[in-house]
């Protein structure tokens, strides 16, 4: 443990070279931009988390605990909008992806560094609109902004959707940048099939970001126009069709769910191999299943609309197509399991989160197939079953993978290790708290507890209470995590170049990396997962 005296933090690294606030605000270094993104999204994660805790606090009992129904409506809208548009969509691609992807490819930077910086500022601008809406008169429509209610409520729908519209540009810029980077900036020897799977996952994500995001842009333009001019496209009173709005909305927002989960899967593909010290099983299948998920994601959006009054033919078709999503997702899960099989697994924090991901995502994914089945969906639609499914995929999936990534790359980002003991405690708290919170919601959902109500029947009291306690357990886990991760930045012991004994490119350079990523131009001599042929020594 303490024998790592050889590990030193390089004197000049991207964190201190060059110095000064201005050099950060005008930086074109992808690592710094990634870090700025990380701070921004963690702020909004905190905010969204506080909203979540307030919601669960209110739901502790059926009575009015801390807020009235109007406030509650705003609260769950804010929780959804902040978590989805400000945290989870940019979380892995824009923060971790920005930091890691060029390093993994052996590139000096992303293809368009200025556009990359612009994307961060555009993100901040979009966030400002959302914050403005938040402090004035937050929307109470739910994060989906369904018409006709969203055209009638007197809350700040316009500034919120305008914020999302602007955030869309930042998402597009990131995606566009990554596609070009992967196509054009790979290091010598880095063929498509020697790329780390994280790059493949990011690539599939980026395709979705570029293809789907413009549609949400035009959707919200039309929604804003509907509010301003009453154009009659979405508002039934004016001759419009609210179900058409749902088509528009979900044509983006269903692929957006895969914008959230695909990079999570990409991280898991890395960590599962590194911490099993074993070559990844089924490399090409994992790579292509990412593209497969991206492809299928455009064909299934109608499963959000089974009870909206869309045509029966469309519902049947979308239901059938939805089942296809299970194939590439299943391929991935089984390949990860096969990778772990007979590996020498070390249960360090990133691997604990990886295992959490595998368990929770599988539950979330399979309940997704339930919901894709028309008949079952009509029974459980708009209940806590849907809420639980969504959180199992998004928090149990993406956030767990994000945390795995944070713990995996934290020593690379800062050059220092965090406290492993507290990391394990925090992971246990989050895992247990998460299941307390959301597994009960599956049960409540099947019993008919509808979502988005600020009160409920007495019969749900025990489960709602349990669920709320679970939410606070999660909160405690995150507080501990914040403390040890921040402490690591200042006091952690130097991690060395490769604390985990990983084979991918980003661990070849120093921790933290120098300004130009690599002191010498890197040349790939082995695949990213050749643990069967190459002995790597961890520097921890």
């Amino acid at each position, binding site marked *: 443990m303490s024998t790592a005296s050889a590990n030193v933090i390089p004197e000049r690294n991207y964190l201190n070279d060059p110095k000064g606030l201005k050099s950060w605000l005008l930086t074109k270094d992808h690592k710094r931009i990634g870090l700025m993104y990380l701070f921004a999204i963690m702020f909004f994660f905190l905010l969204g988390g506080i909203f979540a805790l307030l919601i669960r606090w209110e739901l502790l009992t059926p009575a009015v605990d801390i807020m009235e129904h109007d406030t509650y409506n705003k609260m769950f809208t804010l929780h959804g909008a902040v978590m989805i548009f400000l945290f989870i969509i940019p979380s892995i691609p824009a923060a971790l992806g920005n930091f890691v992807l060029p390093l993994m490819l052996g590139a*000096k930077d992303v*293809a368009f560094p200025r556009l990359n910086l612009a994307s961060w500022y555009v993100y901040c601008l979009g966030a400002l609109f959302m914050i403005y809406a938040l402090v004035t008169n937050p929307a109470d429509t739910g994060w989906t902004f369904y018409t006709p209610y969203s055209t009638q409520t007197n809350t700040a729908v316009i500034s919120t959707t305008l914020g999302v519209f602007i955030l869309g540009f930042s998402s597009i810029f990131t995606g566009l940048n990554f596609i070009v980077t992967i196509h054009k900036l790979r290091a010598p020897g880095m063929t498509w099939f020697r790329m780390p799977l994280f790059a493949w996952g990011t690539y599939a994500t980026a395709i979705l970001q570029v293809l789907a995001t*413009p549609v949400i842009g035009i959707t919200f333009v039309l929604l804003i126009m509907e509010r301003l*001019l009453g154009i009659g496209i979405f508002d039934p009173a004016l001759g419009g069709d609210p179900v058409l709005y749902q088509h528009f909305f979900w044509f983006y927002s269903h692929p957006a769910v895969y914008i959230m989960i695909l990079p999570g899967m990409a991280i898991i593909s890395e960590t599962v191999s590194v911490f099993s010290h074993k070559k990844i099983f089924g490399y090409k299948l994992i790579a292509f299943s990412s593209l497969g998920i991206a492809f299928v994601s455009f064909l299934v959006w109608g499963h959000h609309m089974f009870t909206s009054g869309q045509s029966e033919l469309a519902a049947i078709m979308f239901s059938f197509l939805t089942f296809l999503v299970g194939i590439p997702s299943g391929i991935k899960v089984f390949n990860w399991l096969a990778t772990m099989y007979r590996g020498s697994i070390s249960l360090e924090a990133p691997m604990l989160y990886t295992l959490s991901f595998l368990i929770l995502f599988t539950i979330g994914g399979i309940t997704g197939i339930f919901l894709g089945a028309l008949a079952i969906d009509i029974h459980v639609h708009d209940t806590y079953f849907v809420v639980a499914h969504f959180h199992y995929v998004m928090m149990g999936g993406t956030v767990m993978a994000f945390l795995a990534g944070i713990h995996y790359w934290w020593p690379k980002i800062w050059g220092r290790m965090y406290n492993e003991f507290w990391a394990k405690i925090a992971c246990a708290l989050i895992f247990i708290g998460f299941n307390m919170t959301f597994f009960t919601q599956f049960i409540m959902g099947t019993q008919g507890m509808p979502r988005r109500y600020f009160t409920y029947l007495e019969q749900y009291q025990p489960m709602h209470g349990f669920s709320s306690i679970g939410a606070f357990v999660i909160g405690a886990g995150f507080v501990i995590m914040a403390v040890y991760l921040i402490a690591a930045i200042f006091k952690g012991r130097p991690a060395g170049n490769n604390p985990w004994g990983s084979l991918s490119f980003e661990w070849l350079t120093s921790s933290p990396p120098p300004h130009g990523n690599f002191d010498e131009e890197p040349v790939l001599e082995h695949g990213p997962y050749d643990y069967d042929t190459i002995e790597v020594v961890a520097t921890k």
Partner: protein
Amino acid sequence: MHDVADGHPSFLQHHFFEPEQQAEAAKLGTWLFLLTEILLFGGLFCAYAVYRAWYPDMFYEAHLQLNVVLGATNTVVLITSSVTMALAIRAVQMNKSKQAIWLLVATLAFACTFLVIKYFEYSHKFHLGQLPGKYYSFTGLEGNNPHVFFSVYFLMTGLHGFHVLGGMGLITWMIVKVSKGKLSGEYYTPIEMTGLYWHLVDMIWIFLFPLLYLIG
């Protein structure tokens, strides 16, 4: 910042190995951007398709209110501007900056003409009360919900108009770049990208014209 490595031309950014790679990256990036533009307009095309299928008679009646002659003129104007744009790029490739500037100025002039004609069309409709959505007050049409046609019309042509304005900005910037001698047969990526964008704007109008003005 890293120094420009030995032998690297001044326009080559530090993270690229050579100009060819940089140019290809820029071109791919631009095409991806155009992809987002296609899908942005795509939402409006979808709304158009749905409402035209629901109200075929109303769409026919309402489209008679548009002036085909002005629409066709604008199509000709925009196509001609596309030709001059393509020729401007060719001129830069052949290092004929003076010719390039004249062709770009011509492109800009065509773009202005397009917007002026659009302005006359719009103001005529405003005058008649053929406004989008709930501001619609024209009584001369019988069909169901004619205001939806004008909503779609103004949204599509309006969004397109904004793109023409953006294109004019880019073209002006290119005129400055060419006259400062920043672009040449060796490095002409910016004007090539501007051209791609301008052709896309033209291409979208190629579809808007028959869909809005020539409903049979």
